């Protein structure tokens, strides 16, 4: 029978939220984190601000981390990795390795919250010379610059006069196999465009897109203010290539609503890279024997196809971006649901 413990793998926003909720529901929680600290990708990638009211990312994620880790029923194991799992729902025995050695944790349910990684635009050489041109960066790189209030051209350390975002880099792409929309990049690019204009009011900022996917409130919280109040230029038509021109960048594409070729000089080009399952997600899926979809995300849905936190293995649940491209709302919603399912499993084990 259950020992009353939920084991959660990954201490990013999904894992932290799941830990907090499971603990509040009365379970003991063991939170396993590979890094030496909690916070996940927002922390690791130096996110500046969240799309939610432009909240400071450190502060908001810090509050979440504090709420989870300070709970008396939550035990955090950093520098630790899950290496094996045996048993079944209600009675898992999870092998954990860390610097000090190996140990086994007994848990009634497991939540996988191992998240995503940013698409690497160097993976395919045609991706805009990311590894050749220092002034071609990604939205992940931009977060760090915004956080430091140092938005500059890496080539010369000078603030850019003209900044272009290119959407859908590594997403919606049959060539590279990432056919899905990464869901957050339109909003993140618009958020960053606003921040660039705030930090460099005289700069010109452009966003080149296939179609802007500003679902829900992002439409009027990010997209409209970016255009209407911060004068960000949205141009329909993806940039095809970037050429070096003197010491600047010539972006070439088609301006599709004008039906005309476009060749415009930029100082800094930001690739709106999408999401991919993290290495940790792929590894943990292997170790736990979880089905993955064709993109490497943990297959969610369960037998009904509509359960966003069910995995192929009863008693093991998935939260956040380990299952699909997710924004923080998706992450929190699935984390809370996974916690509830996990606690329910402790109380009434599902024998599949």
């Amino acid at each position: 029978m259950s020992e009353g413990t939920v084991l959660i793998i990954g201490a990013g926003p999904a894992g932290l939220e799941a830990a907090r909720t499971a603990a509040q529901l009365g379970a003991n929680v063991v939170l396993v984190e590979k890094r030496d600290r909690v916070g996940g990708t927002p922390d690791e990638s130096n996110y500046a601000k969240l799309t939610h009211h432009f909240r400071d990312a450190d502060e908001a994620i810090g509050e979440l981390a504090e709420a989870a880790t300070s709970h008396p029923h939550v035990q955090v194991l950093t520098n630790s990795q899950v290496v094996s799992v045996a048993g079944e729902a209600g009675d898992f025995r999870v092998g954990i390795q860390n610097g000090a050695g190996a140990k086994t944790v007994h848990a009634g349910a497991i939540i996988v919250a191992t998240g995503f990684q940013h698409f690497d635009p160097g993976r395919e050489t045609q991706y805009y010379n990311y590894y050749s041109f220092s002034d071609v960066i990604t939205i992940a790189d931009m977060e760090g610059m915004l956080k430091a209030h140092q938005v500059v051209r890496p080539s010369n350390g000078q603030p850019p006069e003209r900044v272009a975002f290119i959407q859908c880099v590594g997403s919606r792409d049959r060539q590279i196999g990432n056919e899905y929309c990464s869901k957050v990049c339109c909003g993140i690019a618009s958020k960053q465009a606003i921040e660039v204009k705030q930090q460099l009011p005289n700069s010109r900022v452009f966003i080149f897109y296939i179609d802007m996917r500003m679902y829900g409130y992002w439409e009027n919280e990010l997209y409209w203010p970016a255009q209407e109040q911060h004068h960000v230029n949205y141009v329909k038509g993806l940039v095809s290539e970037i050429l070096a021109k003197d010491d600047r960048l010539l972006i070439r594409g088609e301006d599709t609503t004008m039906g005309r070729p476009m060749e415009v000089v930029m100082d800094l080009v930001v690739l709106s890279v999408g999401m991919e399952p993290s290495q940790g997600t792929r590894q943990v899926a292997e170790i736990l024997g979880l089905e993955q979809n064709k993109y490497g995300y943990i297959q969610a849905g369960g037998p009904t196809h509509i359960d966003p936190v069910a995995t192929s293995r009863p008693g093991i649940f998935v939260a956040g971006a380990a299952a699909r491209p997710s924004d923080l709302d998706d992450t929190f919603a699935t984390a809370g649901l996974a916690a509830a399912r996990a606690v329910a499993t402790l109380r009434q084990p599902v024998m599949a």
Partner: protein
Amino acid sequence: MDAGLDKVEGILEKEVAIVDGIDISGPWNRMFEQRVIWDYTPELIEKVASLPGAESFAWCYQCAKCVPVCPVDQVGDYGPRKLYRMAQTGVDLLNHDALWLCTTCRNCVRVCKKVVDMVKIMPAAREQAVLNGFVPEELQTAFENTAKYGNPLGQSQRKRAAWTKKSDVPVPIMKDVKRAEVLWYVGSYPSYHPRGIDASLAAARIFNALNVDFAILGREEKDDGDSQRLAGELGLFEMLAEHNIKVFEKYDWDLMVVTGPHEYNAFKKEYKERFGFDRPIQHYTQFLADRLDQLKPMLKHEIPLKVTFHDPCYLGRHHGEYDAPRALLQAIPGLELVEMGRCRENGYCCGGGGGGMWLDSFTINHTTMRLSERRVLEAVAYGADVLAVSCPFEVSRFEDAAKSTGNDQLKVLDILELLDMSMRGVGLAA
């Protein structure tokens, strides 16, 4: 500008080229312009959007819903979303002919998801252009006439009530009677233009037949100035508004009835919002529709014709009145009302609004045909014998268009004229 392009390095062959009103599109007479976009010019969007009232110009996200409903695009290559992109790709709208093509018909705002309001953007941008001295000559003439004579036709102010001499019924002047239940604001075209006067005489007969206690302002009345405002002359509008309001307040009356929808908009909305003039006002179609019980028995003579009705932009879309004109037409015995495809909310525009009345020679250089001609062709296509109107700008515009398109058989009549004909049984050609 997409299909049928020859690829020539650096330039773009225009698929549609209209010069002096003649469509010269075709490989035998090529028009070229720069093909590649070398830079974007957001500062030219800001140049417009920073003008008070024109803020929404910068809000366009290019969904393009506005273009198919833009009456100018039907006869050319135009539309609000195109203006945005033009500004973003190097065109200074404050110094470009495209600034003068919009008739402020309001059909784009009706469908715009982001409420980009050309009805506010145009007067703001044009006011700036006028201040900079960039204004088409014929429009400038209309401005000067209005300033000098109180009407855009350049007719003598003292002769504003001269038309009443032709009336076979009394048309009292406020200066003489001091008090009347109804103040009838006649308007410039109904006072001076021969076809406008026809409608005024009809109105006078109808008011008398209904025993309406009415009076006009005569030579004290000046143009409402709203179309001049929309064409960029805010100062002139304010001058006229101050004059007219002073005259309105001089006399004792209960209800103002206006002949024209532009005057209706001027007094009901603009004079109210800008000067606090807040009195009961009706367009004549509303006034008469309210008295239909009394009017209907007088409509004794059949008008056995197919009649279609052109919704005036400033009565329909701007003020939501679609039913009163139709109620009057349907009260006429024998008359068959046929609706055109573009009617009511999506009614087409005659081209006269927003200063278009005084830009015909200018506009024709940028369109394949006049808006009025396009509308007349639609009326004919729907089998109408009569194109009925209720805006004084329209009678002359549509009559000219009927002639120029070879459709002389189409009669253009104000609803006032049709009612008068049915009352008296005279003037029926058919």
